[in-house]
């Protein structure tokens, strides 16, 4: 069988290859033989004898043509050694709708893209710069222009994440970018509560020149109540706290006076160390109030940089801000919300909880010295999804009495205020009492003595809080919901020690989150039923 060896191909860009004898899609390695590629011109007869199959058995042009050339490659395994067979045949398409001829040059090949030149560059840029390519780029521009005059009558409003506009640009919340140095180009987003800390380089000599350390920079430009409007909201100064060089904070009585940085006794005072914006908005997406609280400090000659912290929080008008731990399901890492039922009512009307969201449900915090009695008061909040174990060591001497010790340990384990109810969802409201799950208390004894009447003393040594939660809601976006919370106190017998002896027992507290979600079941809507009922008096004359 004749073998044609194609000469080395030159790489031509736009011109299509139409000779099927020279086309080889499996020839990937340049100047090397590709395995099982029968059309590779770099392979010799010895290479062909090692192949097992031909990965590309046939090379044709467009199969819709009535008659076309086809290059067929096959391996003759009968021969020894196996050799490649190359045949160039005319393939006939038997279909009635095969293409007999075309008078359109680009019919069967992809159009080569236009080369950008200085004449067509602008037109190409307009056509291809967007996210979608349109055949008529002008029509897109016309549509958007037609929309904006009609939108002018429509009122704009802020939406979540939209940068808050001020008279000149955006409300800035300096934040660290890449490194810890402050960048003033970070806009504050509407309803995006942010807290950032960054470093700014400032010295006593330059403190008057740097805008970002003066109060004026932060309250200078008024915020626009709605985007693209002329209604402005001035930023008022809510409170000013002065931080002294040793870190002591003093709240100033008069917060109307603008305090600008000035040099006093080799110190530069009234440097802005922290700004906290509080924006009040309506549910129509309008900002109606903006207040800023400042922390001003002073730097001395040795200081080269200061750390500034910025915060912004949003409150809806006529509501009290409630810290959410998720909306609606709990978010891992946010504190579990818990509260109390007020006494004196036959049924609970509202759950009361600590406004500090990190103080609602807490456990003992391990300290470095591990002595329970020395570290009283250190608590750590229970964060959803984070299992925790903490503990300390208790030294019991002979002189300790049972009852006070029991009470001390209970206070240690449970804290001063142990809540009664835990919020089922991260956004459970205080008024929805049914959204709150009561904490069930259990008490077990370490020694497994079933006799409840103990003559000896039982002291609590461990508290285990088990939070059972489940995935709730849709399959694609399940929300975490707390179903059950149990607090188990384990007690042990305190044996009376002979005087002078000491004993150390470990006290532990742990929090465990268990996922008790049942496997998800996809739910389908019921088939619609045809509900046909004849009217009551349909057969009137007869019935």
């Amino acid at each position, binding site marked *: 069988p004749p073998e044609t060896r194609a000469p080395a191909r030159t790489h031509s860009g736009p011109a299509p290859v139409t000779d099927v004898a020279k086309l080889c899609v499996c020839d990937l390695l340049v100047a090397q033989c590709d395995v099982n590629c029968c059309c590779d011109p770099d392979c010799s007869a010895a290479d062909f004898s090692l192949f097992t199959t031909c990965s590309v058995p046939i090379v044709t042009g467009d199969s819709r043509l009535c008659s076309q050339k086809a290059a067929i490659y096959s391996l003759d395994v009968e021969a020894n050694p196996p050799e490649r067979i190359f045949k160039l045949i005319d393939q006939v398409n038997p*279909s*009635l709708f*095969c293409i007999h*001829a*075309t008078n*359109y040059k680009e*019919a069967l090949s992809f159009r080569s893209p236009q080369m950008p030149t200085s004449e067509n560059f602008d037109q190409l840029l307009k056509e291809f710069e967007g996210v979608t390519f349109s055949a008529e780029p002008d029509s897109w521009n016309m549509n958007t222009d037609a929309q904006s005059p009609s939108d002018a009558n429509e009122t704009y409003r802020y939406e979540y994440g939209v940068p808050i506009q001020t008279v000149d640009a955006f409300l800035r919340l300096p934040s660290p970018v890449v490194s810890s140095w402050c960048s003033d180009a970070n806009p504050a987003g509407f309803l995006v509560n942010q807290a950032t800390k960054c470093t700014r380089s400032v010295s006593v000599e330059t403190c008057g020149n740097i805008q970002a350390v003066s109060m004026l920079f932060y309250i200078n430009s008024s915020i626009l109540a709605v985007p693209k409007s002329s209604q402005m909201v001035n930023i008022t100064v809510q409170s000013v706290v002065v931080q002294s060089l040793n870190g002591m904070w003093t709240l100033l009585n008069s917060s109307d006076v603008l305090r600008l940085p000035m040099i006093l006794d080799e110190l530069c005072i009234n440097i802005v160390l922290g700004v906290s914006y509080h924006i009040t908005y309506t549910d129509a997406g309008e900002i109606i109030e903006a207040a800023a609280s400042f922390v001003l400090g002073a730097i001395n000659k040795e200081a080269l940089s200061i750390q500034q912290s910025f915060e912004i929080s949003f409150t809806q008008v006529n509501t009290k801000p409630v810290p959410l731990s998720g909306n609606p399901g709990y978010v891992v890492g946010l504190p579990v919300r818990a509260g109390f039922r007020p006494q004196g009512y036959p049924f609970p009307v509202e759950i009361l909880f600590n406004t500090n969201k990190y103080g609602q449900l807490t456990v003992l915090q391990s300290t470095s010295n591990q002595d329970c009695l020395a570290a009283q008061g250190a608590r750590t909040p229970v964060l959803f999804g984070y299992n925790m174990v903490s503990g300390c060591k208790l030294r019991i001497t002979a002189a300790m009495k049972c009852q006070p010790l029991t009470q001390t340990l209970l206070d240690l384990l449970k804290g001063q205020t142990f809540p009664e109810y835990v919020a089922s969802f991260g956004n459970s409201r205080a008024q929805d009492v049914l959204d709150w799950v009561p904490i069930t208390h259990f008490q077990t004894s370490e020694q497994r003595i079933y006799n409840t009447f103990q003559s000896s003393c039982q002291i609590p040594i461990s508290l285990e809080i088990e939070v059972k939660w489940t995935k709730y809601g849709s399959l694609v976006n399940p929300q975490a919901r707390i179903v059950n919370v149990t607090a188990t106190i384990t007690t042990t017998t305190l044996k009376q020690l002979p005087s002078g002896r000491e004993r150390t027992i470990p006290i532990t507290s742990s929090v465990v989150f268990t996922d008790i979600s049942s496997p998800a079941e996809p739910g389908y809507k019921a088939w619609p039923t045809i509900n046909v009922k004849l009217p009551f008096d349909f057969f009137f004359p007869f019935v």
Partner: protein
Amino acid sequence: SSYQLSSVPLQILFYINGIYYIFYFLATLAMIVYKSEVFSYPDDFLAPDLALLFIMAILEVLRLYLAFCFLRGSKGNLTEEEAPLGLSLVMTVGSVILSVYFLVWQTYVLKADVVLNALLLFTYGLESVLKVGAIAAFV
């Protein structure tokens, strides 16, 4: 003997031509729609092809009308006049040119197009021969 000159084969051929042309028109139109879906058929190439197809249809209707009605006459007899037949022959030339266009110069010529147009050209050829024969018989 003048009655025999109104050739019955010519009339039959006109009927066949009419029926075949309806089929040809619908088939070509359907195939143009098919081509525009399956192949890349830009508007500048699609418009002339469609326009010429409709022109051909109008031309064909006129031609066959001329050929039939003037052959029948208002008196109910078969009047034999060579003028309308001659006009019809001239119009046949136009139809032949259009058919050749669809055979050779269309944007996409499928095998079905070749078959349809070849048959149409054969019909025209036969018709023309018979018309020439009929005209020559009067003259």
